[in-house]
Every structure is written in C-alpha cells, then in structure tokens.
C-alpha cells in the first residue's frame, strides 16, 4: 500500500493477483458480499504470465478504503495491492462508440474528435464509429458531447493506470 489517503470519492487500486481461474470471481465476490461498490474494473495478464493485474476503482462512500484493502489482502491469490494517487499516476480509458452522424454534421463531429485526440473507425450512411483513448475525465466530456448527436451504441473499457515515472501525472 503506497500513497496516503485522498479526499476523492473514487480511489484507484492496482491489485496484482495470481493468474489462476476463479480469481476474478473471488475479487468480485468479495466486493459483493462486503457491500463495497466498484466504479470500474479492468483485468488483463501482465508481462509475468503467472500474474494478472486488476485495476479497480472503488467508491469509498460504500466502505472505508482501508477496509477494502485489508479484506482484499486476505484473499490468498492476491499478491500485492497499491493505491494510485490521481496526482501521481497516469490513467487511461478506451471508448468506442457508434453515433448518429448525418452527412451535414460529420465535419463538425470530426473536428471535435480531432481536438479530443480520437479516431474514426468506420463511416456508415448516417452514422460513424469512433474511438477515443484518454483520461477518464476527457472520456466523460466527450461522451456528454456525443449525446447531442445521438449515441447508438457505446462501450467504455474501465480505467487502467500506472504510477507516474516521476513528478505529477496528467
């Protein structure tokens, strides 16, 4: 456990677990039965094939972060838990979205997308599929902007994060 307490409602924990079947169920089951709320969850293998990395964003209004961490630590398959402080980490999320885009509004939409740093994945007769990678707040903003066009289908990955190399993150 690094990083001191933060006043934010949402805290990002990076949980390194053994790469065995059922481990995600153990983590998710623990959150469910102890009444801890998960805001976002992302899981993938790491460079070490024996380990997976879970990035979980915890809503600490449901339970004190300290309890969440201590209970997680009791899971036998949990190897390490670190809290990533938002000021000292880089957080990213991927969004892909299919949005209404009549031909006369496409240029404007692509301008917004360029400014946000996103990509056009495909174009249909009256819709476009877009992708955007960025800090969660930028994804939130872009999602709000797209509502004005009409979202047809929408998927976010949940956030992943790494500690900053040095100094504050973005």
């Amino acid at each position, binding site marked *: 456990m690094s990083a001191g307490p933060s006043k934010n409602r949402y805290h990002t924990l990076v949980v390194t677990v053994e790469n065995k079947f059922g481990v995600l169920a153990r983590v998710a*089951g623990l959150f469910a039965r102890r009444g801890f709320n998960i805001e976002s969850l992302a899981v993938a293998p790491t460079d070490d094939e024996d380990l997976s990395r879970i990035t979980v964003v915890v809503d600490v209004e449901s339970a004190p972060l300290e*309890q969440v961490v201590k209970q997680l630590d009791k899971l*036998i398959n949990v*190897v390490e838990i670190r809290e990533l402080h938002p000021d000292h980490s880089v957080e990213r999320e991927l969004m892909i979205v299919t949005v209404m885009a009549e031909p006369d509004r496409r240029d404007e939409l692509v301008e917004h997308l360029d400014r946000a740093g996103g990509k056009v994945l495909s174009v249909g007769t009256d819709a476009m599929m877009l992708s955007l990678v960025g800090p969660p707040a930028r994804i939130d903003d872009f999602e709000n902007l797209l509502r004005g066009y009409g979202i047809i289908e929408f998927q976010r990955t949940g956030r992943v994060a790494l500690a900053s190399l040095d100094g504050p993150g973005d």
Partner: protein
Amino acid sequence: MQMDGGRALIRALEEEGVEVMFGLPGGAILPVYDPIIDSSIRHVLVRHEQGAGHMAEGYAQATGRPGVAMVTSGPAATNIVTPLCDAYLDSTPLVVVTGQVPLPAIGTDAFQECDTTGITMAVTKHNFLVTEAQDIPRTVKEAFHIATTGRPGPVLVDIPKDIVDPKNPRSAMEWTGDVEMDLPGYHPRTGVDQSAIEAAADLIRTAERPILYVGGGVLKARASEVLRKLVELSGIHVVTTLMARGAFPDGHDLCLGMPGMHGNFTAVTAMQEADLLVALGARFDDRVTGRIDGFAPGAQIVHVDIDAAELGKVRRPDVAIQGDCRVAIEALVAALAAGGVGNVDRTAWRSRISGWQERFPLTYEPSAPGDRLKPQYVIEQLRDATPEDTIVTSGVGQHQMWASQYWNFEHPYTWINSGGLGTMGFSIPAAIGAKVGCPDRMVWAVDGDGCFQMTAQELVTSTVENIPIKVALLNNSYLGMVRQWQDMFYEERLSEVHLSQDVPDYKAWAESMGCVGMRVDSPEEVPAAIAKANEIDDRSVVIDFRVAADEKVFPMVPSGAANSDIVVPPSQEDQER
C-alpha cells in the same frame, strides 16, 4: 515413486499428521475411499455430511489440531456448506475434501455435479479445485498451512474423480515426498510492532477503569497461560466472550464472566463504564457491543488481532496491534514488567465492580415444590456433578446461553459452541468430534429440543463407532429463544415456535439409536439421573430433561439497544445501578 492420485491424497493427509477424519463416501470420491482401508487414519462414518463437518469442528476446537472431513460431490458438498460457514465465522481450522465429477464432465450439469468451489468461496478462508494428480500433495500441504496459520479457518479441496481413479491415466503421478508450497500472496504475520506494545502499556499504566476484553483469538493462539500472567501482573478485570469461555478461569477473582446480549450485568456494565478496553483476539461482534454508537462511550481501545481487517472494522482503536495474541500478550507482559504497571489507585473502580456483582448476580427463580423443572437448575447440577475438565458443547438458543452463564469454565478448550453463525444442531456432532480428540475426557452436549431434532441421528454414529458422549436435552417443547423474542418484542404473539414435549419420544429415540435414554420431570430426579449418566462410559446417554417452557434468559440487551439499556431479571429491577 509412481502412485495414483487417490493414494497420494491419503498419503498426503497422513504426512500432515491426520489421525482421524469424518466423512461419508459417494460416487465421485469413491476412488479415495479404497486406500482408506489400508491407511493409518481412522475414518468415522457419519450419517449426514453436516455431522462430518461439525465433528471436525468439535475435534479441532477440543484439540487445537485441524479437523478433517471428506465427502462426495453435489449434495454432499452442499450439506457441508453449513459447517464450513460455521468454521469460517468462528475461525476454526478445517480441511474439507470433496469429490467432484471428472474434469471433462465439469460444467455439463453431470450427475451430482455442483460448483463446489463457487458455492464455498464466500464461506472458506480459501478453496482449491485440483486439476492435476501431480498437484495433490502440494495442494494438501497448502490447505493445511492456510487452515492453521494466521487467522485459522476452513479450507476446501475439491478433487475431480478422474485424477484419483487408478483406472484413469489422468490419475498417474510421481510421489516425490518433497513438495514446496507456492503461495505468493499469503504471508501471515506473527510478530508484533514493539512501539504499539509500548503505547498499549502506557495506556494500561494510566487507565483508571481498564477491562481486558478477551475473545476466541486468545484460545486459537494458545495464550491462556500468558493471559493469566498479564492479569495477575496488571490486576485488571477480565471478561471472556462466548467464544473465549474458559480462556481465563471463571473462578478467578478478576474474572467477570461473559459480556454481551446475554452476558452478566457486571461484565456488560464494566465494559460500558470502562475508560480502557484491551481487546485481545475479539472482534467487537454486534452480540457483544449492542448498538455500536452507544458501546463503551468513554473507553480508549487497544485492539490486538492477527487479522488486520478486524482492526478498525467496527470500532477505531487508539492502539492497533496486528499479530498473534500469545506473542502480543507476552510482549505486553514484558513491557509492563520492565516499565511498571503504573500507580493509579483503582480502589473506587474495584468497589463499583464488586457492588454490581453483589446486586446483580446471575439468578433465576428456583422451582417451588410441584413446579416444573428449571433449565438453569439442570445446568447447575450438571456443572457440580462433573469433573472440572469436562468438555461442554452446546447448540444454539436459550440452552446455549444458560450453559455459558451457569457453567464454571476453569480450563481452556472445555467449551465448544457455534458462536458466529449460530448453527442449531451443532452440539451432538461437535461433542462426538471432541470425544474422538479427547477420548479420556467426559464430554457433555447441552442441547435444546429444537436443536436435537436437527442432528440427533449422529448418535447412531456415536454408538456404531463407539464414541460415547452424554446429552443433556433441555426439552421445553419450544424454539425457546425465538419464543422469548416473541414474548418480549411481539406482544406474546407466538408464531410457529411450539414443538412438542412428547413427540418424538426422546427416550425411545435415544434407545433406538443404541444410547441409554432417561426422562426427568422433577428437580428431585436430576442428581440421580446425572450420576447414572456419569457412570456409563461404554455408550452414549441422553437425558430428556422436561423443563419449564416460559423461562427466559436474563439479563438481556434487546437487539438494537445500547448495552446501558440491559434488561435484568424481574427480581433485580429495583436494584440501584
């Protein structure tokens, strides 16, 4: 050495020092039952898998060694979920082996298939589904290590049939006799932080109204002896929770007995009025604290627990000490011996305590001539007529509270009950398990009639396996504790709590199971019946004590009330608090 997985499993259990296991065979576990014939391990054949689990718990609590149970897949595995949960809540070390359908059949809804590891995930400290015969020895070693270290608890090992069946090539493995555990995420802490010990010692030196709040962790840590040193060095009064009865002798001047919902007035009130609570292996359970925001409002807290998650879970400690209770108490004794115990004059506190003890002893109205037998009287007679080292087990309900209240526990590991989960039917199988572990000791199961009907068939096991126990059945023809709540909190509207004093015929039922059965109706008959039961040591005995139905457990802190609102028996209502 070439071996099959089934033999390897039994061999691995032998190497862990297992002397007995409790179980019942079936399809998926069949191949493991064949090598049991040639094993040094005694197998006790139960009549229901729940019985196997509670027997393993009773064995573990009486001996301190892990209890082992083995059952088949599907319904057998679900039948043992209750004991797993019971052991989880009471931190009892268990290793439960379940059979599973062959690996290729998993996930196909095969006959007697259930997702055992999925179902038991929330009620075990850890569980394993073994998928390779070669992994069996390591998994067994890991299971025992996890069950018995850190905060003890139940571990389940699920074994698919094909990896233990010698007819299946998947069961082939090489026994090397030298396996290393692979638990990168499990590092139970044992040592303690010396600066926290010093901080706790400082609080103890200056406290005016300190209480040692002793929980089951003291028993798990085998810390009773050093606890006695701490008490005698510091002169601080002790309360022992339901899970810690016997951890400190009830006969000691500084022992106040059990706190909590049905604790005695002095133990409850002394905690409530304390300025320092030293919690040793206790978890601030709701049955102890009452309404948490009204609990011990003026007390600073020192909290010792091996499980870091207990520190601050319910009440924020002023000093938190993570570690083994024995190590922590030894360190506290050393710190107080070196730096002194302080010179606070606690005369006034001691006299308040002795005042409460004089005004609010545990009490009940004895039977007038011709009245029904009182359950508390039965416990007192049993207590006085049995050896001090008698092991007492209980089910859950009024009889459990009376047994805990009126027995005098002078030794650790003489009281075995279901505290956290509150599992009715616990007492008989737990008594059988305790007797297997301690064959030279007298074992009495104090039971209620509701509980008895849940697990009584294990008395057949006791007869056939020659494990003689004694059962004091407090038969009041009601689900007594539920009735007490309906009497007190539901305007005496009794809903679905009446059983029957005569059906079943408990004496005849006991006899049909090979036990000696007796029936006692009046107080005069009690001593002779107990004396007769105590003389029988070649089979189990059941005494059907037909007791008054309207007796209530007092004192009582109503659910949701603060401990300061403790309800005393009618005869003490006018006493000054």
